[in-house]
């Protein structure tokens, strides 16, 4: 049986921490405050963290290996973060829709808007977040199990804050419906639904690229579903469709805060799309050159 001795040093102080045969689980049993998810083990103090799938014997080490440890801080699972950040907007928006007391003037408590677009907007907004919750539970296959704990506060502030801000105006007793009325609302609804289906199709396509429990990365390609044909032109069409959905919602509600939320979301998604696009290019020599990160030919 192949045997090796392993030494783990603290990445900052280079103090010897312990001798180990198997890495993360044994490390955890010696240091119970550092559960496996928050251990970053590297071959180089400033290097990339090794993955659980990495095999000790295949690493460029001799019979005595020196690894460097870094504490990633308290971790929280992606699923938990997604569920929390998406449930907030769902609930918060409904509170404004039903005009729960202390938001608007008391005479409006528990009244409903006379504009049917307000009801439609509530259905769309709620549908969007229910879809996200279901996708989190049944569709997405996450590369990383966890993220730093502080992210949940940052993310929830963003989603919950914007949801409250938008919902306040859309459900306000003095809300003004779109200038072009029925036509505008109908067009907006079509755009919104089209992009919701599109976004869902991409999520399913990405899921199917990856066998259950695996973390492999492959180039996504168009499938039989026409909504995925956008892969010909774009690396991250899920973001493209997401932008489209929110543009539809902005058009539907004709509400400046919604436009602002759409803009901020677009900026963030562009940053992510560019990053993803770059990793695709780095990892795959034969990556289709026609593709742009998020907007065909443009961005």
């Amino acid at each position, binding site marked *: 049986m192949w045997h090796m001795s392993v030494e783990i040093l603290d990445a900052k102080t280079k103090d010897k921490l312990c001798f180990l045969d198997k890495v993360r689980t044994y490390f955890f049993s010696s240091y119970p405050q550092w559960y496996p998810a928050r251990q970053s083990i590297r071959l180089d103090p400033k290097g990339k963290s090794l993955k659980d799938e990495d095999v000790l014997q295949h690493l460029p080490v001799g019979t005595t290996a020196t690894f460097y440890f870094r504490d990633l801080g308290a971790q929280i699972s992606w699923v938990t973060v997604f569920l929390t950040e998406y449930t907030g907007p769902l609930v918060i928006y409904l509170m404004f829709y039903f005009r729960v007391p202390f938001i608007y003037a008391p005479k409006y408590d528990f009244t409903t808007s006379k504009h049917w677009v307000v009801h439609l907007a509530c259905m769309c907004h709620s549908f969007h977040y229910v879809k996200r919750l279901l996708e989190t539970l049944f569709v997405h296959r996450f590369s990383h199990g966890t993220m730093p704990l502080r992210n949940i506060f940052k993310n929830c502030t963003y989603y919950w804050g914007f949801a409250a801000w938008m919902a306040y105006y859309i459900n*306000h007793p*003095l809300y*003004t419906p779109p200038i072009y009325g029925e036509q505008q609302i109908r067009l907006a609804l079509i755009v919104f639904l089209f992009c919701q289906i599109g976004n869902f199709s991409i999520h399913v396509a990405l899921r199917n690229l990856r066998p259950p429990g695996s973390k492999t990365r492959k180039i996504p390609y168009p499938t039989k579903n026409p909504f995925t044909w956008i892969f010909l032109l774009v690396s991250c069409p899920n973001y493209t469709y997401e932008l489209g959905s929110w543009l539809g919602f902005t058009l539907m509600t004709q*509400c*400046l805060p919604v436009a602002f939320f759409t803009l901020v979301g677009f900026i963030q998604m562009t940053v992510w799309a560019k990053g993803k696009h770059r990793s695709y290019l780095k990892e795959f020599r034969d990556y289709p050159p026609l593709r742009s990160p998020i907007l065909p030919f443009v961005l």
Partner: protein
Amino acid sequence: MFKAAHSDVAPKRKKGPGALATAYLVIYNVVMTAGWLVIAVGLVRAYLARGSYHGLYYSIEKPLKFFQTGAILEVMSRVFLTWAVTHSVREVQSEDSVLLFVTAWTVTEIIRYSFYTFSLLNHLPFLIKWARYTFFFVLYPMGVTGELLTIYAALPYVQKTGLYSVTLPNKYNFSFDYYTFLILIMISYIPLFPQLYFHMIRQRKKVLGHVEDYSKVE
């Protein structure tokens, strides 16, 4: 077989700004120093001429506006205070609080821009460095007090006139209450100012901490 020929590797030189960037920065800083000196001189002359602080704002209004807006890189609070508060609310312009923060900014800026100018020319007199990291002890609280008092003075007028405020209903379904916004700004000073202040104190320890070493280098 291991020995790397370290002697052949050139020592890593710190990459500073290129010649053109340096020239631009020098000119920029000289102009800013001059501008703030103009304002300072203007203040002193106006005081001597009038014999009181009354109406001092008007004497330096033009250069103040120019040098504040010209410095787009400046901290947002400065531009905001000048335009969105002091300029917009006429009634506030004769307040003593305005003099307070203008004086604080003026002195701060003269020191700061001469500091940058000299740094760029690699010839920083210790006195300037010392002044930059010491005067702030008084100038920061002075400036903050002036700014807060000015905003506070502007509040009743903002509320009465609805300045910069947007109300419902409107076709963009948006509203903005400048009065509430100003109050939030004032509240934001509570976490922000101590952070800035303690950051400067930490910087001071770092920069001036090794006074003995520095005099050897100079």
